[in-house]
């Protein structure tokens, strides 16, 4: 569920907080920092698909660590979006094995259809086009990920169908 964020008031839902507490309990009591990646994932899902500086500060507060420790991590790992994203983030694999099976064409097709380049949002703001490295689906390429779901063995027709379906959501 999406929450409203203001300059200083980042509030996780009770459901998200329960999930955060569950993760924290997995590590020794003096090693709360270990939960940083799971908590950032929860935060990203909670606050519109990206982690703003305010959200990162809140994560630091929850884990009793310095904000810089969260910034360091959020910028190192590629899954965390540091800028606002579209409603649907398309993460297309561009690595060798997928390229061999047509990833380049799929990316080109997406750029044309969405009217934006890789790394940008479509003009209607609905989609963000990202390329990512090998997602462990190489035999089923070309493929992409949207949120927690993999779409495999894609071609331009299947891609168009998928975009049409997502646009209607």
């Amino acid at each position, binding site marked *: 569920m999406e929450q409203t964020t203001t300059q200083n008031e980042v509030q996780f839902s009770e459901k998200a907080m329960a999930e955060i507490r569950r993760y924290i309990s997995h590590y020794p009591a003096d090693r709360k920092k270990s939960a940083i*990646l799971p908590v*950032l994932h929860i935060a990203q899902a909670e606050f519109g698909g990206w982690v703003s500086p305010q959200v990162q500060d809140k994560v630091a507060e929850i884990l009793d*660590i310095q904000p810089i420790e969260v910034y360091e991590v959020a910028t190192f790992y590629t899954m*965390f979006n540091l800028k606002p994203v579209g409603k649907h983030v398309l993460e297309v694999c561009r690595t060798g094995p997928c390229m*061999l099976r047509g990833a380049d064409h799929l990316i080109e097709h997406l750029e044309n259809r969405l009217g934006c380049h890789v790394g940008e949002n479509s003009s209607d703001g609905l989609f963000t086009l990202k390329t990512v*490295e090998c997602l462990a689906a190489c035999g089923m390429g070309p493929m992409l990920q949207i949120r927690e779901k993999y779409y495999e063995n894609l071609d331009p027709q299947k891609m168009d169908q998928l975009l049409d379906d997502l646009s209607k959501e």
Partner: protein
Amino acid sequence: MGLKILTEHINVPGIDTLETYRKMGGYRSVEKALKTMTPEEVVEEVKKSGLRGRGGAGFPTGLKWSFLAKPEGKPRYLVCNADESEPGTFKDRVLMEKIPHALIEGMITSSYALGARTSYIYIRGELMFVLRILEKAIAECYAAGLLGENILGSGYSLDLHVHPGGGAYICGEETALLESLEGKRGNPRNKPPFPAVWGLYGCPTVVNNVESIASVPWIVNNTGDEYAKIGVGRSTGTKLISASGHINNPGVYEIELGLPVEEFLFSDEYCGGIWKGRKFKAIVAGGSSVPILTGELFLKTAEGTPRVMTYESLSEGGFVSGTMLGSGGFIVMDDTTCIVRNTWNFSRFYHHESCGQCSPCREGTGWMEKILHRLEHGHGNMHDIDLLVNVSKQIEGNTICPLGDAAAWPVASAVRHFRDEFEWHVKHPEKATAPGAVYSGAEDLAFA
């Protein structure tokens, strides 16, 4: 049909549930180990099995376990490496997704052998849907008394947790993985000390690949000696191969080590041959980090011996004419593949994934990517080809972790085996950059 010990029941409906998994004989190794064996006896069986780490390096698992330090008053940890990010490798994902209990059973039996009371499965963050499958399976185990306090009344207790990564290939390197699990950037540690002495939270730790751990139950149930009978020589057991690229039947296959490569590549039971009736040009046989080979050198060694799927056979000829089994990522390329483009793609990957700690890797991977980009786009010169090899040599062996080597080998081997194709890009840039153009042999170079 070869023996299947990991994937035998992969198509049984409901095999992802504890009930069905147990019906098919699951969790027998936990009963056997915890109730009738000492931890040392379990380690001994794994040693006897000859099982070698399936994460890529092929280090004997039992030996690694026997190095684990056991200081008084410090916990020990088992951490499963489920980061699977090596391009061309997707076997761990398929195994965890389809049969999550295979890994969890292995984790319980292995944790008991190592004396761990808390264990972690570090899974790459992109596989959040697989994390949820594992968590559901773990919850079933807690409810059934297979995890938690006093497992099956044996007196042994274990907590098992799944931890998601954040998207970074380098976190597959075991010390980077531990840093990441501690909530930090994934920067590999300098070694020694090795994780066996100084691992998670400064405690003795074993890091093992998903497939290695999932192989342990069969070894415990059937003895290490029986496992060692499967395979050839020092390549014992079965291995999961992720097959991708230009083949008719991509997917994950469990093979008995020692299977002839020709059979694996061409028979319908496995890869089913090259797609679209095309010719076999090249292969990266063990995940993107291993040297690329021509089709001929892959099927037969330089001496003309047919190769088989073992650690030894694939590396015959060293880096001059051989490669490595690595993680079992089998990437096949047909005769329409541009080797320069492919090498550039992999170089871009390693540059992108370098953690940036050591200058040979950080700078060198950037150089290689740039040079290959030039060559691929028709702006390279002959000197660039030697420069590539030169840069790769300066990275190799001069870095904190093996990512540097992993970036260097594919480039050096591509130039070694496909030099004329690189030269063609320099001599005939207009042809080489034409859409769909592919180098087809020496006559292309000769005619201007």
